[in-house]
């Protein structure tokens, strides 16, 4: 069975400092992995996806994530936080390979706060 564990329920950073949101996955298959962001009163938005073409994945708004099979991790990073990055972030896994979706299995989420 597929699952994801987000290691931090809440991360707080200062504006301009790096962001690290941690995610570990469990999958019987070669997984497809995604990060979604949820701003208050807005729909979930896809940040980036792992398609197995490259282990370092670049997404929107300067975010990137690195797939590490040996560590079963897919951590999300950004070099410099912006106030507008404050939101809830979800790590997601599916059984579809190559970046395909289908039924999405979400982690519990990490709330990112950005201090001025």
């Amino acid at each position, binding site marked *: 069975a597929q699952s994801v564990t987000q290691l931090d329920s809440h991360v707080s950073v200062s504006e301009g400092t790096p962001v690290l949101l941690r995610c570990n996955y469990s999958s019987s298959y070669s997984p497809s992995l995604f990060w979604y962001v949820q701003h208050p009163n807005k729909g979930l938005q*896809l940040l980036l996806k792992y398609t197995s073409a490259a282990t370092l994945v670049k997404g929107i708004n300067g975010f990137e994530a690195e797939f590490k099979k040996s560590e079963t991790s897919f951590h999300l990073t950004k070099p410099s936080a912006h106030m507008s990055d404050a939101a809830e972030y*979800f790590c997601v896994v599916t059984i579809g390979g190559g970046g395909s979706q*289908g*039924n999405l299995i979400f982690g519990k989420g990490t709330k990112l706060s950005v201090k001025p």
Partner: protein
Amino acid sequence: GAGVSQSPRYKVAKRGQDVALRCDPISGHVSLFWYQQALGQGPEFLTYFQNEAQLDKSGLPSDRFFAERPEGSVSTLKIQRTQQEDSAVYLCASSLTVWSTQYFGPGTRLLVL
């Protein structure tokens, strides 16, 4: 607008009432998904349609939950005899195909008193 829309955005129901939540997917999207997001949790899969066919309803928590998509476009999630544990945000997502990127609506926040 070109996105997924949901209505109502907020719904307060008394315990035991029936509710109906509507989802308007992106035009032309074949696949439609419903998820339930409890407070402080990630969304959880409820059910999935391909056109008008409900191909997977394994996530529906009880037989009080019923979903339909009769013409392969708009979908309705109905909850009968609501209970307090049904309080959650109900999210709808649509995609071009079942394996394509899902686009989410803003959700309907249901509060059962």
